[in-house]
């Protein structure tokens, strides 16, 4: 007890009924106390009778202060680590009015279509944006993350590939490592064999039902997918492609190059990295597979008055109806984050997205040129947002030391030639002085640029009203001026 007790008690705010009302409510039930209720509603055998080990309640303000001190223990450096996660600017209008807005974050899944039209419109925009970027015909309204989306793509490919005995799935060794491992986790219990290797070595035969490649790949290279798709299709296999949606603003759409399934993470469309999530992954595929695509799909129908109205489509695919025949257990997805990504695209518009993507590519190009003059080698002929460097005047330990002095994270590769790598943790270990070992994995050619995504499709959707202030997406939220190319970006992303 203190003379002046705290006044920021949260428990009474979380609980709906006031404690003074318990008696009246219990009275209706013919009971005297909450203890009485528990004794009558719960079998005695299941009551543990154990006091929790947790602390007593802390006050609302007290907990916010505690969380602020925890957040302060995290250090926010500039990260050029790539691997599918990128610094991005959340447009303030989206930050405050979507992500931080209970009118957007407290709804339930849109099962009751009539009172969910707003978010379904935003999700329809998400699907339209995904189709525009991927060049495919049907998209869902988000999946959990890129790696699980890739695993879902594998399962989809297996369901639709001709020939039931096919059991092998080829995975490019230039996919992000976490994607490869999640695909392995998901493949093993299903009895699929996962073969990881260079795309050039992919051997398609009648055992293979599909393959997975990354576009641009984890080494920031952009390969032309056409030859691969032709080889795969000739053998009756499907091509799944994990693609960075911002790169797709400039690059030819994978669907037009022949990819059958495209997945990816829309995090860099304005969603904070958050140490890994939540972010919305996407999946798109060909129309003929629409009844096989996992997750929820928003579709257009009409209401009783004959006007357009949105709803969840093809609900019969879902596991709550199909049960043992279910092909995916996906249920909750990432609606709020998909809405953020979709509104990011609306906010910037096709020209704005293109400007952001070109700015990134331009900066990385200039950076590569400057570093080459300093003696670094980067072998990419086709790149989007990162460079893999080797052979420069500094060894990797020195690069690391200098980068860390400026609070910059670079991705250091394990296949280093210099000795210092042996003292580094192997997995994220260093090296701008490393080189890719195999010439066989050289990129082929730059895919031709294509027109950017087409415009919003509904009257009243705003065109961009500001030309330059919010265009730069290439920083982290905490570091508003990180678009500068002068930072020593070795490889990774968003220069």
């Amino acid at each position, binding site marked *: 007890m203190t003379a002046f007790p705290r006044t920021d008690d949260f428990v009474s705010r979380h609980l709906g009924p006031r404690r003074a009302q318990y008696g009246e409510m219990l009275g209706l039930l013919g009971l005297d106390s909450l203890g009485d209720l528990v004794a009558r509603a719960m079998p005695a055998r299941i009551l543990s009778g154990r006091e929790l080990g947790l602390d007593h309640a802390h006050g609302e303000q007290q907990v916010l202060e505690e969380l602020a001190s*925890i957040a302060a223990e995290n250090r926010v450096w500039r990260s050029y680590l790539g691997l599918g996660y990128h610094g991005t600017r959340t447009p303030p209008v989206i930050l405050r009015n979507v992500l931080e807005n209970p009118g957007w974050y*407290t709804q339930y899944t849109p099962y009751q279509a*009539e009172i969910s*039209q*707003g978010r379904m419109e935003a999700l329809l925009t998400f699907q339209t944006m995904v189709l525009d970027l991927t060049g495919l015909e049907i998209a869902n309204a988000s999946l959990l993350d890129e790696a699980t989306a890739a695993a879902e793509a594998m399962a989809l490919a297996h369901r639709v590939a001709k020939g039931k005995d096919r059991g092998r799935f080829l995975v490019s060794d230039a996919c992000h490592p976490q994607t490869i491992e999640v695909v392995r986790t998901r493949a093993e219990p299903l009895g699929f064999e996962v073969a990881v290797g260079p795309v050039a070595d992919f051997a398609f035969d009648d055992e293979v039902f599909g393959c997975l490649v990354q576009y641009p790949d984890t080494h920031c290279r952009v390969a032309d997918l056409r030859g691969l798709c032709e080889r795969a299709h000739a053998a009756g296999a499907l091509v799944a492609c994990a693609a960075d949606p911002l790169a797709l603003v400039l690059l030819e759409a994978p669907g037009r190059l022949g990819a059958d399934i495209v997945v990816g993470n829309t995090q860099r469309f304005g969603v904070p990295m*958050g140490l890994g999530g939540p972010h919305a992954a996407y999946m798109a595929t060909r129309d003929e597979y629409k009844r096989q695509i996992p997750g929820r799909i928003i*579709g257009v129908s*009409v209401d009783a008055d004959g006007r357009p109205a949105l709803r969840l489509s093809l609900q019969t695919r879902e596991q709550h*109806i199909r049960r043992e025949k279910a092909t995916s257990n996906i249920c909750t997805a990432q609606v709020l984050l998909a809405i953020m990504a979709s509104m990011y695209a609306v906010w910037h518009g096709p020209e704005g997205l293109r400007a952001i993507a070109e700015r990134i590519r331009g900066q990385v190009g200039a950076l590569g040129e400057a570093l080459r003059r300093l003696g670094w080698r980067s072998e990419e002929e086709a790149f989007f947002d990162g460079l893999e460097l080797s052979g420069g005047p500094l060894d990797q330990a020195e690069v690391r030391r200098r980068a860390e002095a400026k609070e910059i994270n670079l991705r250091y590769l394990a296949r280093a030639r210099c000795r210092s790598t042996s003292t580094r943790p192997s997995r994220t270990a260093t090296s701008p002085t490393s080189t890719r070992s195999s010439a066989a994995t050289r990129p082929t050619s730059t895919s031709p640029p294509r027109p950017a995504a087409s415009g919003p499709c509904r009257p009243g959707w705003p065109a961009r009203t500001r030309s330059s202030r919010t265009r730069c997406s290439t920083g982290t939220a905490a570091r508003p001026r990180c678009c500068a190319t002068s930072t020593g970006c070795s490889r990774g992303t968003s220069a």
Partner: protein
Amino acid sequence: MLRYLNRLQQRDLSLTTSMIPLGSCTMKLNATSEMIPVTWPGFAALHPFVPADQRRGYDRLFATLEAWLCDLTGFAACSLQPNAGSQGEFTGLLVIRAWHRANGQEQRDVCLIPGSAHGTNPASAMMAGMQVVVVRCDDDGNIDLGDLRAKAAQHADRLAALMVTYPSTHGVFEEGIRDICDAVHEHGGQVYLDGANLNALVGLSSPGFLGADVCHLNLHKTFCIPHGGGGPGMGPICVAAHLAPFLPGHPLVATGGDKAIGPVSAAPWGSPAILPISWAYVRMMGREGLREATEVAILNANYVARRLHGHYDVLYKGPEGFVAHECILDTRPFKASAGIEAVDIAKRLMDYGFHAPTMSFPVAGTLMVEPTESEAKEELDRFCDAMIAIRDEIRAVEEGRLPKGDNPLEQAPHTAAAVTADTWDRAYTRDQAAFPAAWTRDHKYWPPVSRVNDLHGDRNLVCTCPPIEAWAE
């Protein structure tokens, strides 16, 4: 842009409008103070693969939250990696599978699942390479213990696991849960407890105490992460000590057990940015508050069930006539008596300003109401008043005072355009259509569209923005 966002937002009914009494979904308060830290740069701006010394704050957050969740579930270890309840199910089953394999029991691949289970359970079992065997439920919605014992014995050599939801999806604390767990263990299986309904257990009992070996927690249900209109969620799993070595690992960051199964998510801790929400909730409630929340969740559900007594039949109750934290209202008889189905009641509730309860789960043609501990008595009364008024409307159809078809239930919901149109040729008044309860005059939520035609949409599948002309009046 602001106006566009606001316009879309106003078309949706969220918790900012009214209670969302969705059974099994636990739409409780998402307090603003829990939400505020999510967008702080110290949580939001970190790349998932930064060196460990840059995420010390997160590591502290993970460690404390894991310890709390273990305390609450009665288990020894926790993995925050699964990104949704369904992913938690899959992960938990993989952990069980890995344990069997480590014990030289590779042939164990049968997963018992009660007929009342959520559809994700069998789907997760299939994905984990298991064969699903369905266990019968009795007339009260409880697992048929005889059938369970028989099937566990029949598959004793191959029994891998039982997946069971507790309290049951029928909203009842089953008496026999500990016997059920014992029976599975006797035949070499493990018990996976689906934590979807953990809101009714916290502080009073725990999956570990009940005899389970692993459970997932829907942090977006019991632990206050908002549903976000269909995500994000998180489905971490907690496990007994013998399963801890198998918790999932990650190729880029050291995490999980020393015999870890592979990663189940792209990021090592799933969706860390939303963990401060659950952390804040547990911290602000404390052990007494969490227990009281469970008690009040049970109180609110029983209060609703009792107030609706005589108007609707509650389908399942415990032996002493009480429900757990939710109740199933049997609306099936109205089909014969008035041609009214659960969906008509669900849509009519919109005219009263409410989101429908869960429809047709776990029993087709019924409504399942979960008020949660966060709804005030006044809101519960308003909801009950709406349900009672709807029952009167059904009675009017039953008694022929309103025709079948042309009544406010089957025509619901009513848009502003419909009730203000120049012509009105329905058998009930505009006032009855749009303002069926007093409070709707003070605060009216207008459904933006009338009843959506599901069949038309599936027959004419359009899943992209239609051309501008389609929206022209």
